[in-house]
């Protein structure tokens, strides 16, 4: 059974259970990522970095964490 204090969010295409009330900033840090080096798309909307701390993830949200990789 899932913890009642937890919510389900999809992060990079994968369902994950995270703590309710988590900010985007906290979600990013929970993956040990540097918020300055990634971009967050929440339900298809790009968040600016100064929104990370103010926006909370909600049950059923779809989050994409992207960054630059090698390419031509």
């Amino acid at each position: 059974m899932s913890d009642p204090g937890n919510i389900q969010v999809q992060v990079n295409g994968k369902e994950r259970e995270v703590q309710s009330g988590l900010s985007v900033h906290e979600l990013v840090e929970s993956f040990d990522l540097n918020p300055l080096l990634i971009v967050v798309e929440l339900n298809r909307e790009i968040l600016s970095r100064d929104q990370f701390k103010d926006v909370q993830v909600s049950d059923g949200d779809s989050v994409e964490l992207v960054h630059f990789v090698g390419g031509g």
Partner: protein
Amino acid sequence: MSEDGALTGHLRIADQEFESRLFVGTGKYPDNETMVEAIRASGTAMVTVAVRRVDLDRTQSEGILFHLDPEEFFLLPNTAGCYTAEDAIRYARLGRAAGFNEWLKLEVIGDETTLVPDTQATLEAAKTLVAEGFNVMAYTNDDLVTALRLEDVGCVAVMPLASPIGSGLGIVNPYFIREIKRRCSVPIIVDAGVGTASDACVAMEQGVDGVLTNTAIATATDPVAMAHAMRLATQSGRLAYLAGRMEAREIGIPSSPTRGMLD
């Protein structure tokens, strides 16, 4: 790097001046150290990067910003891997949010086997992105009409392919590369298909403004040496173009005097 520009003239795209006419990608290198060393050896002024999901399980390498200092290299995000205008626009916006400027290499693929672009979708995406303030450098076919239309919708550079991405076949249609250069006013950068230094040189000899290459450097046995070769070849081709080549004739004409021969 500054001597590259002194030798062949600076390249201006939109409001930006570039010292080098060689643009390089960052994919497919054996390791990040080799990549950085090769990029430095190339003397390049602009380096392309791709936008992808972070691997949350960390089985792949970390983001490229751990290795490439945006203060040292001008980063150009691409929309590689996108097959629709809608996807390309999404990736472009993510690239802008991740990056440091409004520049974009727009790429919308139309065919999985040859990776040739979907020119209609490219035009559609270009229109939207130009309106959103992007400096769009558009990857396209060696097709004159598409190149002219990309210029019309406001792309800051048009980048016709030499041959398919990653093929290393060199310029398959030099005539149309020349014609695109003759007819467009924006800079023309030959992008994709360069296999070795001579291909970059031949591309520059057509009169284009620059060359973009990735696979030829990254998958060479010695990427750093190949990067250096590409740098010299790009300069060499540019200089040869500026010098104006002799007329080709299908007959031998002596270089030494025919008079004054001994009896």
